[in-house]
């Protein structure tokens, strides 16, 4: 047996790929996670709303509903092991007419059928007691206390870190461009001509799962990006709700939501528009108005004045409206994990479990590691420490006393830690530490973060990027080319004053 052949290569380091990787890292396997971006969680998962759904939106017959319910229940244990920010704040669906109330009742029945714990229908009074900021025109709604919120990137980073700690390898900037299958082994080549070999391949490439499937000779299908624009509002925003607030859903989407983020900011969105370009992350001003009109209908005190940024990402949708997870019938030892749109994040731990079982079915031998370590060291977040605890931390490492990001209270020590964990772009640091994610959006801290990255990595500051590739931040030193040259000799103008 060749020693450097991976047992499993997973393509795509989003929430799904990372969950599968982490689940498999409990077994005696040689694992590789391949990601085309510079960092993990830089694709679809980056723009995720961060909701852990309760499990009432999808019919009991769907794979989605099963994995959603199962996934939801796994988050407490995962948080215990991995320490990412997660809170079961509960989900409310607010109805504004008696027609909508009928849909609420259907959702309730669907939830009960799916096995959603503690789900209830609320009358107007109870709903307003749970969520006092709700538009008093509401007639009632649904309440699912097991719904929650999470920081999606921290979740993915933690999964990857845990898997790495258990021996998995992560290759970023590895865009799969070709694959050959010989002697039961895939040889996978990246756009940078790097090659790896693997016996089993998992396609969790999100928006690009159709293209990856084609590369491996798998099933032919099409992923259609459905773009969502979201708006982030500052901490202490007037409209910050107690729960995640949903409108009564339409057929195409769950609607515009009002989301309290686990870190104290809030989000409104997302829109749902099918687009052609998988890299389309544009926002538009028309959608801003639409999003706010709908959000403010539910919570009238929401204010556009409190927007700190907007962003857009696309869901990877497929015809059929269910997840497409299964062993490929045309490519050997190739597992499709495609069409993972909402509730993909919620379902992700259950998908990890499900794919593990599929691999077993596909002939992979799974032997539990004797030294599997499910816990990762919990990150110190200065903003969560009491003054006394912070004082102790500064004694340990003075860099904890130097605040780099003033809006989110991120210390230099946390930035250095993120860099040592391999996050060496401005966005990578932002998603890992929150530096630059607050109200000034990096206006004060980004140059400091750039300097720290340069110092820690030994790279010139001009090479630091926003998110890898050609996203360089600085284009030169004083003076740059194309000017500042002396005019040959100033024309001797004999100047006389009248």
């Amino acid at each position, binding site marked *: 047996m060749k020693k450097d052949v991976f047992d499993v290569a997973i393509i795509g380091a989003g929430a799904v790929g990372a969950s599968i990787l982490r689940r498999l890292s409990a077994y005696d396997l040689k694992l590789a996670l391949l990601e085309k971006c510079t960092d993990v969680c830089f694709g679809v998962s980056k723009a995720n709303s961060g909701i852990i759904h309760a499990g009432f939106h999808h019919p009991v017959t769907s794979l989605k509903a099963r994995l959603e319910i199962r996934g939801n229940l796994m988050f407490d244990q995962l948080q215990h092991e991995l320490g990412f920010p997660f809170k079961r704040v509960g989900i409310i669906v607010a109805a504004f007419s008696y027609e909508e109330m009928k849909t609420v009742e259907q959702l309730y029945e669907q939830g009960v059928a799916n096995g959603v714990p503690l789900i209830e229908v609320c009358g107007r009074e109870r709903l307003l007691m749970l969520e006092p900021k709700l538009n008093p025109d509401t007639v009632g709604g649904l309440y699912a206390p097991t719904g929650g919120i999470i920081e999606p990137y921290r979740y993915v980073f933690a999964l990857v870190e845990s898997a790495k700690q258990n021996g998995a390898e992560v290759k970023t900037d590895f865009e799969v461009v070709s694959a050959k299958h010989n002697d039961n082994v895939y040889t996978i080549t990246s756009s940078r001509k790097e090659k790896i070999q693997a016996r089993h391949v998992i396609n969790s490439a999100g928006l690009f799962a159709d293209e990856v499937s084609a590369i491996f000779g798998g099933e032919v299908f099409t992923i259609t990006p459905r773009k969502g624009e979201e708006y982030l509002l500052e901490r202490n925003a007037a409209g910050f709700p107690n729960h995640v607030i949903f409108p009564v859903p339409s057929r195409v989407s769950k609607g515009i939501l009002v989301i309290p983020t686990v870190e104290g900011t809030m989000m409104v969105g997302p829109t749902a528009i099918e687009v052609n370009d998988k890299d389309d992350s544009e926002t538009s*001003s028309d959608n801003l108005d639409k999003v706010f009109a709908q959000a403010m209908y539910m919570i009238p005190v929401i204010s556009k004045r409190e927007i700190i940024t907007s962003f857009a990402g696309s869901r990877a949708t497929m015809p059929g409206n269910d997840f497409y997870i299964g062993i490929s019938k045309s490519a050997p030892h190739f597992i499709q994990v495609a069409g993972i749109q909402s509730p993909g994040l919620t379902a992700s731990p259950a998908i990890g479990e499900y794919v593990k079982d599929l691999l077993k079915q596909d002939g992979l031998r799974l032997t539990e590691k004797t030294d599997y370590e499910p816990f990762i060291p919990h990150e110190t977040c200065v903003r969560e420490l009491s003054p006394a605890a912070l004082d102790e931390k500064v004694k340990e490492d003075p860099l904890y*006393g130097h605040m780099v990001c003033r809006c989110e209270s991120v210390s230099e020590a946390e930035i250095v830690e993120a860099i040592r964990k391999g996050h060496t772009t401005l966005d990578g640091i932002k998603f890992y530490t929150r530096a630059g994610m607050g109200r000034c959006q990096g206006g004060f801290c980004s140059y400091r973060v750039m300097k720290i990255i340069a110092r820690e990595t030994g790279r010139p500051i001009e090479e630091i990027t926003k998110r890898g590739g050609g996203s360089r931040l600085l284009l030169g030193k004083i003076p740059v080319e194309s000017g500042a040259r002396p005019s040959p000799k100033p024309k001797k103008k004999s100047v006389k004053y009248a």
Partner: protein
Amino acid sequence: MRELEYEAIVIGAGAAGMAAALRIAEGGFRVALVDREDHLGGILMQCIHNGFGLHWFKQELTGPEFAERLAEKVVAAGIDIFLNTTVMDFSVSNGVKTLIACNSEQGVIQFNARAVVLAMGCRERNRGNIGIPGTRPAGIFTAGLAQRLINVDGYVPGKRVVIIGSGDIGLIMARRLSWVGAKVLAVVEILPHPSGITRNIVQCLHDFNIPLYLSHIVSRIEGKDRVEAVTITPLEGGTPEHSKSFRIECDTVLLSVGLIPENELSKKAGVTIGHDTGGPKVDAHLMTSAEGVFACGNVLHVHDLVDFVADESTRCGGYVVDYLRDQIGEEKQGAVTAGANVRYVVPHRYVPGRDTHFSLRSIIVKDRGTLLIKRQGAVIKKKTVQHVKPAEMIYFKMRGSDLPATEGDPAPLEIALE
């Protein structure tokens, strides 16, 4: 965790904080000056252009010179200075103000004081605040960040630049970028008139043949990794006329679209913030809604001249001294409100019979305007103001003799422009 007692603590060591601390020290009180940066002077240190100090030092200086002159006095006055020190929390209980701050050398410090001066300055509005549509590539900077990168660190953020907003920082950066060899392709202003002063329009744009597009917006930013182009659209009757849009290829977008007072700490202490200024509501002594907590400089309202910041802050320091000497009486104060054509007036209260300095900002542009100070329906004072424009703060002093006491509680004062 160490605990330090002061009579007054000033948060922020820019022009405002230094001027206030200096005045408090001159009054004979123990004052600490706390700043998260590694130097005194705040943002002035990156404002290397001239145009500072004409009123305050009677001499035209650059930002660093202005700051250094003030800093020398602060050091000479024996004020305790805490640099690289970030204030994390601020609370008021039973008259004692408590700040939790932190630095690398001393760890966490709890400051207790009778009086606190808020002098944290402001931050720049960013893309999210104004919602420019398009992609999110590298190469979008606020003007102040670009200024910092060039003037302190020597890095040039881009070579072909479009500037959004014609505020003074944006204009100054147009000249700076031109002088370091970059090409500024356009300045795009949503308003029909420039937001910056005429001198800067002439010396920062005309001198370099940089086009200024008034009543235009950037309707789209393009570029995957790095900015590749912007689309500029004229406004007609207040709405974008997309058929007349044009595209400029560039690698950088600079935003100079206004400043927001930085009041997160003020909010932690329960200070009431005014919607009009974005800063604390202050009474005639520049005291906020929290007793013993004062505010001055850009954290109170955004100024356009550091000289006025220094002036206001010195007065603020004087009020702190009065407060510490228990000389701020219980005299009744009347409300001050913004009347027609006025965006805001600071302070928000006045004491009858006492000289009061007012700062206000116009909403209108007018060659020759008249300030109307009204009380109980009557105009009690008129003042002519030349060249009224939103970009230039109006700063004036009302004599106490013009503000006599009214019967009963002081009547509200309304300041209007016509």
